[in-house]
């Protein structure tokens, strides 16, 4: 099964320093689940502006962790929430995005150990 994360950028950014890599991976592991819960809550409450904001703030971290499948998806969620367009598709998209992120978090946790 293909990996969700690609740490090429992080390796290059940290000069391959394992401690620095661990620090950033840990930050992502700590922050990501909370952000996903927040996005899910905003969607449940049909608070699309807040959903857009939460998606927007998670976007750079998704990029830095090399979660390619998640990158396009979070951008799309951000745009759809901003424009309040095709909102009926958002639950499925968010569910897919959450699955990708959860798999990414699991991969990163494995790598840290």
């Amino acid at each position, binding site marked *: 099964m293909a990996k969700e994360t690609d740490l090429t950028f992080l390796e290059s*950014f940290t000069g391959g320093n394992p401690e620095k890599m661990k*620090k950033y991976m840990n*930050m992502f592991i700590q922050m990501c689940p909370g952000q996903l819960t927040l996005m899910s809550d905003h969607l449940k409450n049909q608070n699309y502006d807040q959903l857009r904001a939460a998606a927007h*703030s998670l*976007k750079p971290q998704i*990029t830095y962790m090399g979660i390619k499948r998640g990158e396009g998806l979070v951008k799309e969620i951000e745009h759809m929430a901003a424009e309040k367009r095709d909102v009926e598709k958002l639950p499925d998209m968010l569910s897919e995005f959450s699955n990708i992120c959860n798999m990414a978090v699991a991969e990163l946790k494995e790598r840290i150990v």
Partner: protein
Amino acid sequence: MKQVKDIFIIDDDPMQSMMLQDYLSKYSTFTIHVYNSGEEALKHLDINPQIIFLDYNFDKAGADAMDGVEILKELKQHIPLTEVVMFSGQDKIEVAVNTMKYGAFDYIVKSESAFHRSENVIFNIIKRMKLQGEATMYKKLTYSLGIALLLVIIIAIWLYKTGNISDNPGWI
């Protein structure tokens, strides 16, 4: 302001702030100060930073938090000589134009290349500061020479009028 000593990073995303701080920490001459909101940074303007990296969105800081443009306006009002570089996850040209309108030096999209771009922006600002310093020096020099020339002319006229010098130079 001829050298960069203090740099502010104002961002509510701790990972982004830490990555930029780590990236710039290779330059030991800079002291990096990190703040997670504009309100917090505005309390420390007495440090008088030369460069500020400022996030455009402050969604995590709370609904009442000032947004990037509001902070930019405050900064430009209190420390107009400080160069502000905006950071955003949005690659929309309107956002960039809006920040430039309020005096931002540059606009960087949060991506893998953002850190390298930040470094380049710092060097561009240093280059500009040096050029501005030189321009000021030449302006002062030109002004001083002008004053000196005027004084020589005034003294020459005065000497001529008082008969201390004549039209006839001594060797004719």
